[in-house]
């Protein structure tokens, strides 16, 4: 069907909204609350347009496109309405843009500029608000909240967690966890998707930059850093490079110039995770262990199971995540190797994730009263740190990560995309069960942005049902099937965030579906072009076993690389 937008003919399909049709035609209507893929909420009213025959302005995000519709998106009336809305939002907003973590990347700020808001027309009291700094991962500042509700929706409708909701009514409305308490005592799983969708600075990560800088400035400390598989393919966007550019080499250089004594690649311990996890799977298959086995590298997911599916805790792999495995071997093996007291080592992890901050603080993630990971930076914080030191990533020469934990295979790198852990695990499981690595390593069925991907693998005559879910709403669907008695799955990979770590809560905020796809594609290209593509072929991992860990699932491995879980009440 055809409608008319701003005097131009625009094609639309049944089910389209005016906003959707306009966007495809290259007409930009601003919104603050629109969430692609979820039903419209119409909360912010920023997308109002004039439709001929309609008395008032209508929200284009919720107005169905129809044949013959005549729409004006930027009439004087529509633009004035938008400007008034922004002015009203600003009237109840703290004037501290210069101190705000979202300065220069704030949608409210952009709109104020775009709409030419230059004068204050509304004065009045501001709603009193208290900051919530209790969570190890996320800081909430309700004073900056514009009540668009995107955080509430992503938490409930995408992640199926529902840690926060609208509280109260009218001018006293606010967003927060049950009982107006801190996120730390809520059922928040720390995934940070709310941080990723927040258009303003009301939700940001708990910052660790200052701790890291203090450690770097302390000559007594040996500061070690690791970076996660998905960071090198997303960091580029923070420096104006094209989404999907792999900046692994320059990134390592930048980290060295910042003063990190050792730069390691988390993909190394992703390979190590695969050795342990594939061995655990093979063991469970052979000895009638609890199946399906579920991955445990996504800390938001782990807390999700602990809270909502404690009956399925035995299904979780006991493997720690790659971050924690690297943390553990740094403060044991590396400390011994270089002959320093582990207390002098300050271990930093650069992650696409806010939940990793929570994971690093879990009491079981360390030994002798010492945590294995001392600070976690998100991709965004890492970019901020690099900029703070005047380094331009685009102009830096490449460098390689340090031994002993710098070598990685592309299997470890695949951890950054949903389905990648399953793909990597199958490569090694195949080797463990048959003694040889399969010729065709790529499993197309486990790639891409679908929320649930399934694949049936045949390994050594045994059929293994594999599922990869990303986004916890999708994971919940599979868990409900398992509870209902589904038996054909043996291995389930779950990533908390839709698409996997490439779309993590700590990633650059430019995360449009296209950017996420580009980041994912970059990982697939790395895998396609790599010489070593299976974790068990990683010479560094083989050496670590030979010199220190003995073999997968050994006593030493269990002590350092495996963990346990606890049942948690959904709201404490």
């Amino acid at each position, binding site marked *: 069907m055809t409608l008319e937008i701003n005097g131009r003919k625009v094609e639309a399909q049944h089910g389209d909204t005016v906003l959707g049709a306009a966007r495809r035609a290259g007409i930009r209507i601003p919104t603050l609350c629109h969430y692609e893929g979820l039903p419209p909420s119409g909360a912010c009213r920023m997308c109002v347009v004039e439709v001929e025959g309609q008395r008032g302005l209508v929200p284009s995000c919720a107005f169905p496109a129809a044949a013959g519709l005549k729409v004006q998106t930027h009439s004087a009336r529509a633009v004035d309405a938008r400007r008034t809305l922004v002015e009203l939002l600003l009237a109840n907003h703290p004037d501290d843009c210069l101190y705000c973590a979202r300065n220069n990347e704030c949608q409210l700020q952009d709109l104020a500029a775009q709409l030419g808001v230059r004068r204050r027309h509304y004065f009045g009291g501001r709603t009193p608000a208290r900051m919530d700094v209790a969570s190890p991962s996320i800081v909430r500042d309700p004073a900056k909240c514009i009540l668009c509700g995107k955080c509430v929706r992503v938490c409930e409708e995408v992640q199926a*967690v*529902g840690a926060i909701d*609208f*509280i*109260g*009514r009218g001018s006293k409305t606010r967003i927060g966890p*049950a009982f107006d308490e801190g996120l730390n005592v809520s*059922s928040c799983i720390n995934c940070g998707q709310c941080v990723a969708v927040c258009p303003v600075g009301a939700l940001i990560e708990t910052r660790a930059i200052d701790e890291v800088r203090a450690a770097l400035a302390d000559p007594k400390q040996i500061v070690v850093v690791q970076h996660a598989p998905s960071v090198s393919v997303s960091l580029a966007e923070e420096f104006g490079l094209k989404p999907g550019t792999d900046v692994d080499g320059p990134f390592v250089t930048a980290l060295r110039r910042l003063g990190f004594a050792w730069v390691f690649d988390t993909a190394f311990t992703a390979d190590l995770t695969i050795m342990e996890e594939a061995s655990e799977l093979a063991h469970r298959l052979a000895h009638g262990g609890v199946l399906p086995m579920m991955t445990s590298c996504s800390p938001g997911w782990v807390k999700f199971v602990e809270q909502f599916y404690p009956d399925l805790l035995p299904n979780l792999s006991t493997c720690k995540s790659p971050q924690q495995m690297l943390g553990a071997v740094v403060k044991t093996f590396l400390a011994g190797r270089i002959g320093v007291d582990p207390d002098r080592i300050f271990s930093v992890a650069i992650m696409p994730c806010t939940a990793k901050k929570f994971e690093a603080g879990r009491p079981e993630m360390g030994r002798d009263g010492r945590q294995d990971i001392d600070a976690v930076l998100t991709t965004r914080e890492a970019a901020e740190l690099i900029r703070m030191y005047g380094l331009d990533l685009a102009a830096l020469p490449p460098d390689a990560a340090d031994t002993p934990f710098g070598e990685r295979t592309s299997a470890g790198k695949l951890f950054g995309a949903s389905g990648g852990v399953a793909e990597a695990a199958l490569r090694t499981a195949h080797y463990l069960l048959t003694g040889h690595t399969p010729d065709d390593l790529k499993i197309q069925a486990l790639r891409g942005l679908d929320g649930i991907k399934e694949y049936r693998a045949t390994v050594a005559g045994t059929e293994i049902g594999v599922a990869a879910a990303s986004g916890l709403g999708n994971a919940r669907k599979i868990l409900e099937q398992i509870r209902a008695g589904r038996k054909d799955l043996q291995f389930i990979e779950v990533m908390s965030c839709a698409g996997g770590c490439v779309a993590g809560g700590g990633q650059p905020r430019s995360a449009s579906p296209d950017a996420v796809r580009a980041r994912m594609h970059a990982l697939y290209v790395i895998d396609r072009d790599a010489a070593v593509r299976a974790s068990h072929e990683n010479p560094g991992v083989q050496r670590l076993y030979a010199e220190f860990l003995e073999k997968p699932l050994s006593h030493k491995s269990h002590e350092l690389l495996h963990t346990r879980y606890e049942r948690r009440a*959904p*709201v404490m």
Partner: protein
Amino acid sequence: MIAPDIEPIVARYHAGRRDALIPLLQEVQTSCGYLSREAVVRIGQHLRLPASKVYGVATFYNQFRFQPLGRYHVQVCRGTACHVKKSQQTLTALQRTLNIKPGQTSRDGLFSLEVVACLGACGLAPLVAVNGEFHAGATPDVVNRLVRNIRKEAKVK
């Protein structure tokens, strides 16, 4: 005080039925006088709703309170007639002398405060009810005296 058991009430509602939320909240409040944290979490479990959602819905309505009632439950009418007769000043006076906000209960458990839309006796405005007993012409002076008397009485008991 040990909260009354809400299990028999909860059991009367189908598990997982979201539309039962408000009636269930009302019935629990009628029975307990307020919605405790435990009750909010329990109701959420039963209806398969996050506690944040139950709390969000309950805070939307003025009728729900989250602190137990005091021995003297003070209702201040803020309807139109009472408003014209300066019930805002009465409310401010009560908040000051009781040191609580509407919806709260004093620490000694003696008083709780609630704002209501209309008590239906507009001729007596401004109107305050204590444990259901109406006090007509409740100006700040009147309510301050009232509170003083109740405190004295409570001490004797």
